């Protein structure tokens, strides 16, 4: 029942401001500590026999790649909340999550490229998984661009939500078409558009335990950091909406004063 009361509290922007104001400092601090510890562990682990010291990039690259996808899931989930339940905070959440998710996607691309140069000899190859992350980045860009180009706020929110959900419907197809799909028991075999990337290792199958723990810690720490930033962005967005409402009220009051003056 604790969770229910929290959701109820969060349902109201004022409550959200109070609650998040109390949580945010702790959340940020925890995230920072965990990331720091993960980095300490990671940088002191023995180098990988295959990848050498470049394995250090993994501690940030992989969390960024995961958070890129999680960020889109958050946007989609919030968009669904807006369109179906018309929850006022859902839109605030969707709007706040998009640029943060885009930033993590960008970082996944950059760190991946910087890993690729020593491993493959080139910054970029048109490998399947890289390509689908790039497409994810474009979906983020689309969300941000659409929202920024519609003046009316409620309109922009709902339209962006529709786009986010269309993206969800098509993401699997985009992924399959670049990465291929194989379901042996159905006899289904769609070849990848191109395959060069490391096959997905699955958690820990090739990664040594001394690297797996820092990686998991780092992923956890960056996830907390993501949520802290998201919370901060939501708070700012709520303030921004209040400013806007007050400005409109100001104009209305000016008009009302004029009406009174005209009547006198």
């Amino acid at each position, binding site marked *: 029942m604790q969770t229910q009361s929290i959701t109820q509290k969060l349902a109201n922007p004022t409550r959200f401001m109070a609650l998040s104001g109390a949580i945010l400092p702790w959340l940020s601090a925890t995230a920072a500590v965990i990331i720091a510890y993960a980095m300490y562990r990671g940088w002191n682990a023995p180098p990988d026999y295959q990848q050498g010291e470049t394995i250090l990039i993994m501690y940030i690259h992989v969390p960024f790649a995961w958070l890129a996808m999680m960020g889109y899931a958050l946007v989609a989930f919030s968009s669904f909340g807006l369109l179906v339940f018309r929850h006022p905070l859902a839109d605030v959440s969707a709007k706040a999550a998009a640029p943060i998710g885009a930033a993590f996607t960008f970082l996944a691309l950059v760190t991946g490229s910087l890993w690729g140069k020593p491993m493959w000899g080139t910054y970029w190859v048109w490998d399947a998984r890289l390509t689908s992350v790039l497409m994810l980045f474009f979906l983020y860009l689309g969300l941000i661009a*659409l929202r920024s180009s519609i003046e009316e706020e409620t*309109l922009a929110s709902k*339209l962006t939500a529709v786009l986010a959900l*269309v993206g969800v419907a*098509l993401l699997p*197809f*985009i992924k*399959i078409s670049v990465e291929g799909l194989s379901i042996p028991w159905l006899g289904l075999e769609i070849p990848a*558009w191109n395959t060069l990337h490391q096959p997905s290792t699955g958690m820990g199958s090739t990664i040594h335990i001394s690297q797996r723990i820092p990686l998991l810690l780092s992923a956890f720490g960056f996830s907390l950091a993501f949520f802290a930033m998201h919370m901060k962005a939501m708070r700012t967005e709520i303030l921004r909406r209040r400013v806007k409402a007050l400005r409109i009220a100001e104009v209305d009051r000016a008009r009302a004063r004029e009406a009174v003056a005209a009547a006198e």
Partner: protein
Amino acid sequence: MNAFWTLLKRDIRLAMREGGAIGTALGFYLIVIAMLPLGLGPDLNLLSRIAPGLLWIALLLSALLSLGRMFETDYEDGSLELLAIGGLPLELVAAAKALAHWLTTGIPLALLAPVLGILLNLDIAAYGVLVLTMLVGTPAISFLGSIGAALTLRARRGGLLLALLILPLYVPTLIYGIAAISSATLAASEAFWPSFLILSALSMGALVLGPLASAAALRIQLQ
């Protein structure tokens, strides 16, 4: 369904009568393809090798950039709100308009493609397959594109924005469209059918998703 045909007929008639719409898209396609040899150099082997891809991408851009006004004139002259309460579900209104766009832009562009293939020294053997895959693939452009047109109806920067939103959604169509052509020309023709079937399936999917999402967006726009 009668109302559907009425609307479709009207949209086709308007496109024919205004003329410019079809002509502009075709002209743009032509010019972009004509610029490519200037930019890529006159190596005919190279050009013929990448011709299918260039033809597809340029077609995508022309179709996409001509989509902008799909709902715009109807919105501005007040027809759209009347269409919305006319009795035909808004999903079918969107479908009729996307279909009209395919008939008046998608098909002409697909038919123009082999002609432009000459400029890029495309292998003659590929002409048939090129047109076939394009005819099968272009409905996805019109129907997915209608989502973009509906979303950007009241946005400040229509054209480019629409392309930005919708291009990533075309990745599957593009990949399988080109896969079908290459497998046909590279004599690996047993690989043609899977790609072609997937391409058809994608277009069928777009036929469903497009109208649903566009109608949702249009309802929001009418508020």
